[in-house]
């Protein structure tokens, strides 16, 4: 596997970064793509008791092909529980049972606020996006939120055009004003260049590690705010043989993850 190790693609590394945030026994609400791959890597490596659910109402699905949506047919046969949106979004998420939620967005800002609603003016949009879906409640109610983003000055923002899903809103204390637990919220932004982690005090994302092949300078140039750099900033550990084996042999033998290359995750 050592040759293959050198051979990984960025989306694989990003999925591994997500997987490493998941602890054994975590309940993870996943969508499709990255989140699903990441949660499964964790399950097949260090977190065998992690369990996944989809907002559509499915818990512990046993898909025989990668799900292409949270309502995908392959999520039905073999699941442990299939209920309704109310069951997953109400009973499990609003009920405080979900440990980890994955989110992505067209814009993500330094406080982890996410925009999936509109680019430009809401009433007169430059670009209209899908809207919240389950993102807003997942961002507010999951204990730890992992954000996936493309690393450029268009996707990362000092301040998003529209807060669809609050991260730390405008900084320390803002979540508490709304009765949200202070110890919940975004953990990391995993980009195609780096892992940004949120500072417990300032609630701002800082550079924790740069991916192999990327540099701190390049990352600072491509981040539209004055990105703080961790004193112990380091290279992101590449995927391990075990992680790559889980991806390639078990989770995604058809290599559907390669579609992220076309979407710019290089």
């Amino acid at each position, binding site marked *: 596997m050592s040759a293959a190790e050198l051979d990984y693609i960025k989306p694989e590394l990003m999925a591994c970064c997500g997987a490493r945030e998941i602890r054994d026994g975590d309940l993870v609400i996943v969508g*499709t793509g990255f989140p699903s791959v990441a949660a499964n890597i964790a399950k097949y490596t260090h977190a065998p008791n992690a369990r996944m659910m989809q*907002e*559509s*109402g*499915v818990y512990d699905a046993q898909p025989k092909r990668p799900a*292409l*949506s*949270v*309502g*995908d*047919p392959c*999520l*039905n*046969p073999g699941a442990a529980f*299939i*209920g*309704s*949106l*109310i069951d997953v*979004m*109400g009973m499990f*998420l*609003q009920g405080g049972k979900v440990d980890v939620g994955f989110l992505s967005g067209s814009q993500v800002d330094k406080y982890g606020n996410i925009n999936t*609603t509109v680019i430009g003016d*809401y009433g007169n*949009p*430059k*670009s*209209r*996006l*899908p*809207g*919240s*879906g*389950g*993102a*807003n*409640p997942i961002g*507010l*109610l999951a204990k730890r939120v992992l954000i996936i983003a493309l690393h450029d000055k268009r996707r990362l923002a000092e301040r998003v055009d*529209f*807060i*669809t*899903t*609050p991260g730390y*809103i405008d900084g320390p204390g*803002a*979540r508490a*004003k*709304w*009765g*949200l637990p202070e110890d919940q919220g975004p953990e990391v932004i995993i980009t195609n260049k780096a892992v940004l982690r949120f500072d417990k005090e300032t609630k701002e994302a800082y550079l924790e590690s740069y991916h192999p092949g990327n540099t701190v300078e390049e990352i600072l140039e491509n981040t539209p705010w004055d990105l703080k750099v961790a004193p112990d900033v380091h290279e992101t550990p590449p995927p391990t043989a075990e992680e790559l084996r889980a991806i390639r042999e078990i989770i995604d033998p058809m290599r559907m993850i390669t579609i992220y290359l076309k979407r710019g995750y290089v």
Partner: protein
Amino acid sequence: MSKVMTMKEAIERFVHDGDFLFIGGYICRTPFAAIHEIIRQGKKDLTITRSNAADDFDMLIGAGLVKRFIATFLSLGVYGLGRCFRRSLEKGIPHKIELEEYTNLSLPMMLMAGALGMPFIPVKDMVGSDLLNVKSFMGEDKYKVIVNPFDGTPTLVVPALKPDVAIIHVQQADEHGNAQVWGIEGDCKWGANAAEKVIVTCERIVSREIIGKDPSRTIVPDFRVVAVVEEPFGAHPGYTPGFYDVDFMFGSLYQQASNTEEGFRAFLEEWVYGVEDRTAYIQHYIEKFGYAQFRGLWADFDYSYPVSYAY
């Protein structure tokens, strides 16, 4: 007292211009045959709702029939963004719909509140987001922040929704309307039961006796139902568990067509206006793409274990 009728009759009799429609489905069991018939009949000024809308809502918007949309999300998922939805909001083509936006927690809760006769319901989402800063046709009634009378904390409450008509597609129903589903439910049960009238379209009509063999599967009882339409492949290009898979080829075809106004209109001409009902639609599908492609959608056999309700 059979309520069995054709889709044409069901839509003619029970969907009216200006109605507020809940349309069930979640890729799973999308009532596509009903959507097409609504477009054929040109029912207009509709208010539509469901959590996580997709191609069916995009098509209604593109066809110009939607005035208002109580939304959480609209995307074609793996195929991309909803182009008709975007053209409407970005360019006012064919006209700009009015949008009231919630989430996949609050909207199902509002439908549940409607179904359960509750005036409003507290929710924990949306706070701190711009979703609270944009209000459309619901105005100040989009939500309220009240003081929790038990602990004094600020609490968001959202109003109950009560659609005029719900349209759902289910695996099976009897002629009276007792409707049974299994697999991903989305917000179908609460949405249907929140509505004044329910139109049930189904893969198969079964006897009342078969319903009674497993009554825990029923999500809508007959007394809520005004029409039952037997419509095999009624959810195509979506899927129905136990019956057929998603048709990715066709979903992609719609996405590509809807990329342009012209393409979208040609798609409607071919697949909606150009066929008189779902039978003609499937006939056209088979003629165009071949029976093998059609046959490829059919579900495998993988049956559950039977259970008994006896004593």
